[in-house]
């Protein structure tokens, strides 16, 4: 299903999931991505300041930043508004 989502939908899933620190493996599993694509998305979001890395010993985790909250909120509002109206009939 990964290819059927837009990059913005995948960013949203990653940012929501990373509200608490998450490992690379758990992110790609949750978002149903392969490691190469997953790494590209994470690099992009980290580069833009939507995610930050947290070191815990030799483990690296990703966590959403405050900047991500605006994105999550805008995205959520936009997508929920898609269901403001539904096809006009009932079965």
């Amino acid at each position, binding site marked *: *299903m990964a290819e*059927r*989502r*837009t*990059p*913005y*939908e995948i*960013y*949203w*899933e990653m940012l*929501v999931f990373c*509200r608490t620190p998450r490992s690379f493996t758990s992110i790609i599993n949750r978002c149903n991505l392969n490691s190469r694509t997953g790494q590209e998305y994470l690099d992009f979001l980290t580069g*833009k*300041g939507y995610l*930050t890395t*947290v070191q815990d010993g030799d483990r690296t985790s990703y*966590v*959403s*930043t*405050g*900047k*991500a*909250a*605006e*994105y*999550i*909120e*805008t*995205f*959520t*509002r*936009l*997508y*929920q*508004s*898609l*269901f*403001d*109206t*539904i*096809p*006009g*009939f*009932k*079965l």
Partner: protein
Amino acid sequence: MSRPVKTVMDPAITEKTLQESSQNFASELRGFFALCILNLVFGAIILAFGIMFIVTSVLALVEGGTSFWFAITQILAWGAIAFLGFRWILSSVKVLKGITEIRGEYGALEKPVSGETLTGLIIRMMAQYRENRKAIRLMTLICTLGYALFLALGVLNLIAGISAAAGSGPLYIFLVQAGLTSRLGGSLFFSFLAAGINLAIGVASLLFSSWFRRYSRAWDLRLAEAARSGEALRHAMEQG
């Protein structure tokens, strides 16, 4: 360490909008699920009809009640109809599978549904539509074809019934040979019963086709809107 993620929308407005969106989402899931089930049933009926008439045509051929090439044409025609029914079932199952998963997940959620959970399901629904767009268009086309076919059969049955009532004209003999009307002594009852069934299936096909078109239109609009949203998000990300 990063700041905790906060929300800045007006909570009252957000909650109202969220619950409306959630109800609309649930309602659409229900409607689309029922439509897929009905399609599955009708696909099965058409497949059964096709097979039944193939058998009838083969029997007529064996008994020598009709010409060889006419029987072969009939078998091929009913074979095509049975194939149409089979494709109808396959398309319905493909779409139904995805919608059943989402419906099951939505049903298992505690209500009221949180905004993020709903958005996650909307994303999955969008992905389902992108994946099944062709199948849904095929179903719309098959429904339209089914409508035309069953309407034509219904009209032929009606003509056969009227013709049988009037006696034994050339049209009636042709319809009997074509296997499109009852062989039971030109029974009026069976002709009109067949006409009723065919016309009912035809009308149902037309309705399904119309409903699928409405769904397709709504979803195409949503995808276009999502693409526009994507542009806005990209712009915001570039600026940020």
